[in-house]
């Protein structure tokens, strides 16, 4: 197994004992990117030169006797909707091509302070709107387990990079499942923290009441260590919470004795592949065998989460994306026109189809005379979805479900069927509606493709979610299987 396939916490030991240098580790990852990137296509922008410079700096610090802390010297990938000072940030959209942010996102600053090495900026569905990276304005990323399939989305570039060994870990963003669904498709661990747990400053806004940045890693331990770096209050994001951040490492105990697990039956309904339901029930058996109480429960409004999402997210997006008008940054039409024409033509030329569609939908839902029927109604149903969770968490410590109804689908299979595509997120959206933390981790394979297990927790209780995930991971071997890209 190459260095590129090892989790950060193992590499940390090798760096500390000086068995490897950060330079060697970085070169191993960059070589891996050279080898597989033509097939996988995870990256929009590669940062080889900067990564080598960062690696040298880290090696200098280690040589001077500085202790190696988590993620110091670890090659990490960033979803290309996270602002990086002076480094092109495109959101996979023609309208932002060439945009070099004048500042770093808070998570980027935090990772820099932790000493992480940035390998590059990863592909996504344009402005994170999609479930497969097929809506990227540039190209479609491939699933490392089967190159004819999608990696999921929208953080598909980040999950494919980690799944293919093109980065040790990555950051993604999750508005309706955009970390967890692609993590499940690519056989890696992905977590959406509680809304407000991680600062969104410098994350290009899609739907501000739902967006949350989170870690994508090879195992649960790395997820906990990375979340610890990302989490915490930030004065630059007024929605970031000021609750103390626990040491998530302390939750990495392989024990679930006494924990109560709820299994909402709505997540095993029509459209969920039988093999996936079976794999999740098998996982529940493992957790039960370790001493957890497992019980079926009901969150009846979960089935409404999809239509609610497809009003709320586009409504917020239509407002957030009004800023792309060809004035301050990004694309501007070359046509000679007046100011309104400049806006209209710039946006026509710069945005892809799905983004235009959602802007139209959101604009309509917020327009005079329709607000009550759509946005307000959706916001009320959102309350019902949230109340279901509140009730379930009176009785259970976590809820366990499949992450996505299917394993990775073929490229092109759903791109002409918007409703089918959206159903891919039907099991992840409810947690966003209620702002809850959720993780996806590997729990088996169907037709050689990874299956994801989703664990949802109480607000701010990422710790218990990580504990259950870690206990399950330690009891199984799924996370050790790596995509074979030699073929």
């Amino acid at each position: 197994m190459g260095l590129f396939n090892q989790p950060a916490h193992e590499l940390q030991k090798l760096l500390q004992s000086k068995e490897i240098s950060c330079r060697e580790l970085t070169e191993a990852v960059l070589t891996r990117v050279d080898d597989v990137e033509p097939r996988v296509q995870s990256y929009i922008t590669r940062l080889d030169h900067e990564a080598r410079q960062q690696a040298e700096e880290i090696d200098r610090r280690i040589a001077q006797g500085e202790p190696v802390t988590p993620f110091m010297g670890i090659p990490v990938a960033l979803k290309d909707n996270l602002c990086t000072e002076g480094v092109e940030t495109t959101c996979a959209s023609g309208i932002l091509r060439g945009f070099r942010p004048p500042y770093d996102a808070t998570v980027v600053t935090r990772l820099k302070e932790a000493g992480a090495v940035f390998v590059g900026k990863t592909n996504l569905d344009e402005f994170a709107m999609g479930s497969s990276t097929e809506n990227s304005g540039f190209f479609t990323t491939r699933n490392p387990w089967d190159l004819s399939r999608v990696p999921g989305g929208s953080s598909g570039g980040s999950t494919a990079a980690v799944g293919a060994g093109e980065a040790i870990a990555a950051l993604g963003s999750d508005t309706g499942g955009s970390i967890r669904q692609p993590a499940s498709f690519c056989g890696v661990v992905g977590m959406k923290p509680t809304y407000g747990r991680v600062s969104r400053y410098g994350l290009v806004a899609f739907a501000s009441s739902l967006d949350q940045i989170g870690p994508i890693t090879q195992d649960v331990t790395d997820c906990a260590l990375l979340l610890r770096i990302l989490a915490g209050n930030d004065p630059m994001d007024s929605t970031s919470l000021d609750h103390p951040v626990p040491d998530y490492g302390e939750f990495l105990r392989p024990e679930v004795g006494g924990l109560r697990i709820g299994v909402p039956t709505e997540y095993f309904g029509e459209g969920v592949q039988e093999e996936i339901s079976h794999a999740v029930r098998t996982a529940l058996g493992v957790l039960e065998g370790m001493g957890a109480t497992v019980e079926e429960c009901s969150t009846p409004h979960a089935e409404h989460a999809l239509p609610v999402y497809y009003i709320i997210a586009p409504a917020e997006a239509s407002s957030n994306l009004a800023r792309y008008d060809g004035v301050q940054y990004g694309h501007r039409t070359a046509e000679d026109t007046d100011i309104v024409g400049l806006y209209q033509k710039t946006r026509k030329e710069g945005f892809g189809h799905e983004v235009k569609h959602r802007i139209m939908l959101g604009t309509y839902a917020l327009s005079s005379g329709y607000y009550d029927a759509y946005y307000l109604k959706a916001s009320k149903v959102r309350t019902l979805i949230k109340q279901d969770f509140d009730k379930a968490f009176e009785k259970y410590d976590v809820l366990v479900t499949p992450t996505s109804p299917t394993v990775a689908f073929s490229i092109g299979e759903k791109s002409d069927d918007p409703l089918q595509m959206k159903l891919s997120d039907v099991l992840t959206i409810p947690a966003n509606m209620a702002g809850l933390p959720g993780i996806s981790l590997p729990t088996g394979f169907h037709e050689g493709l990874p299956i994801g297990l989703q664990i949802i927790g109480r607000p701010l209780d990422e710790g218990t979610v990580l504990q259950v995930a870690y206990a399950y991971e330690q009891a199984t071997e799924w996370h050790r299987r790596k995509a074979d890209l030699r073929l």
Partner: protein
Amino acid sequence: MLLTREQVDHVGMLARLELDEEEREKSMRELNQILEHFEKLAELDTTGVPPTSHAIPRTNVLRDDTPKPSLDRGKVLANAPESADGCFRVPRVVET
């Protein structure tokens, strides 16, 4: 059909989005598909249910009004498609 051609054009204008013939048709079809899907929610009684705008409410986050350096003007304008005299440049807005 919930949304007419004229409404699609109106929404396009509100969104400052120029749509060609094909996009108009596609947009109307797709919007109606989603809106029909949403219609199911009408069956759900939400009388007296308060709306949720943010999952974890935080209101009135205050800070001291202390002047701090803002982004460097040169760096900000470097991204502008067109700038002049330290400003963003746009086509004439006001008639003289």
